[in-house]
């Protein structure tokens, strides 16, 4: 006899946590949610706010697909609770540019074919914007290293490097 439940026999099942109001500022807009503390920022975006541009690739901070910018800094939205991000300025891929008005990184990703399936792409682009905000990466080697928090299983890395490098260079030119 073997089981994997976190509940011991005879132990009562704890009730789900109560929900409360959580206020988030996303892409410049105030959004109000009725959620319990256990909702991650990633799930808040995808499941409650229909902002599905931010992707879930592992839910454990091991792939970078969920990268968003919080106060201009890139983070993994799967490893923070929505309730922890009240008062913060959150920027998702939807806040960077639109199909009609692409952000320079989005245009560079298209020009350099820096993606295939596209699933890691919003995270790559948000990460690249974070990299540019940080201002630490200039050479190819530095960009490679500081873009290494975003896995691309299709293997578009050389094109991602080219796209990011182009925008980094344009910023510093």
């Amino acid at each position, binding site marked *: 006899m073997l089981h994997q439940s976190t509940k011991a026999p005879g132990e009562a099942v704890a*009730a789900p946590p109560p929900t409360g109001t959580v206020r988030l500022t996303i892409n410049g807009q105030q959004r109000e949610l009725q959620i319990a503390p256990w909702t991650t920022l990633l799930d808040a975006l995808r499941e409650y706010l229909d902002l599905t541009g931010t992707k879930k690739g592992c839910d454990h901070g091991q792939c*970078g697909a969920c990268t968003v910018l919080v106060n201009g800094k890139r983070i993994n939205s799967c490893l923070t*609770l929505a309730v*922890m991000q009240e008062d913060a300025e959150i920027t998702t891929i939807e806040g960077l540019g639109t199909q009609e008005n692409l952000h320079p990184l989005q245009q560079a990703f298209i020009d350099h074919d820096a993606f295939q399936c596209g699933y890691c792409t919003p995270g790559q682009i948000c990460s690249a914007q974070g990299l540019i905000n940080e201002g630490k990466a200039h050479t190819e080697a530095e960009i490679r290293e*500081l873009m290494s928090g975003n896995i691309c299983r299709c293997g578009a890395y050389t094109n991602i490097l080219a796209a990011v490098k182009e925008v980094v260079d344009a910023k510093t030119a």
Partner: protein
Amino acid sequence: MNSFTYSRATAVEDAVREKSTHPDSAYIGGGTNLLDLMKENVERPVHLVGLNKLPLTTIEPTPDGGLRLGALATNADTAWNEEVKSRYPLLSQAILAGASPQLRNMATDGGNLMQRTRCYYFYDTATPCNKREPGSGCSAIGGYNRIHAILGASEQCIATHPSDMCIALAALEATVRVSGPNGDRTIAFEDFHRLPGNTPERDNNLEPGELITGLDLPAKGFEKNFTYLKLRDRTSYAFAVISVAAALELEGDTITDARLALGGVAHKPWRDKEAENLLKGQPATADTFRRAAAKVVEGAHGYEHNTFKIELAKRAIVRALKQAAEGTQQASDVFLNSNP
């Protein structure tokens, strides 16, 4: 993930009080490891005390000429801090060798010390693990233990500590500042983490309810001769197979002071003072480095899949010391000469 409530503390005392009044609660700083483990049902706190509003993010000089890192300073802010970069580049390097830019933006310096092992069995609730469930057995012994300990392990647990930052902190002899229900105290870094012994469920020597508030770095930063050498299965975004923090003070070719700490080999950052003593007063030569390396692995014990680490540790130590002595850096590191 279990059911839990959340409260946000605005002062250290509030946080400590909140923690003591909620049984089975946990502090949450960056959350990068805690939420990961909660999603795996490994950690199951019923209440989280949110720390991100505490005023513990500053990095400032201490009266004795050292540097104090606020417990909630992020790993990224610490690694890129000008004082840290110029005076404690070993620490900066070690932090940048770990995790990813995103995680370093979230993870806090205090939280880095609280990281739990990457042992597969600890993470998988379908398997026995003494660290997760005391008394259930150690699956890693006799299992797939390539990433496991070769030093200081016990029959109860052969897990390793996963941090890079902590290896540098061990070498630099940092001090951990904590606040708890019984007031404030400091803990020497080497006494902070534990070996598994018969209580592998305890990673460190914090008392119940204690909160890390800061880390003090002593004045001496070994900013000239240091290396953080990290060997891993991919170039970035991977835990260390083995890492070495080496710091030397040289007068001419003679080593006047030395620090040596290893990651990926034990349940805690593995500092070897005896090996350091073998270096002090000696010429900075390959022979000297080899003697120190041999000393470090003297009591090492390999398991089915990790015996290679004994030889690898020796070679990594020799390489790290050589690089430190030459004042060159870890070859794979791309940031050393690129301060714009």
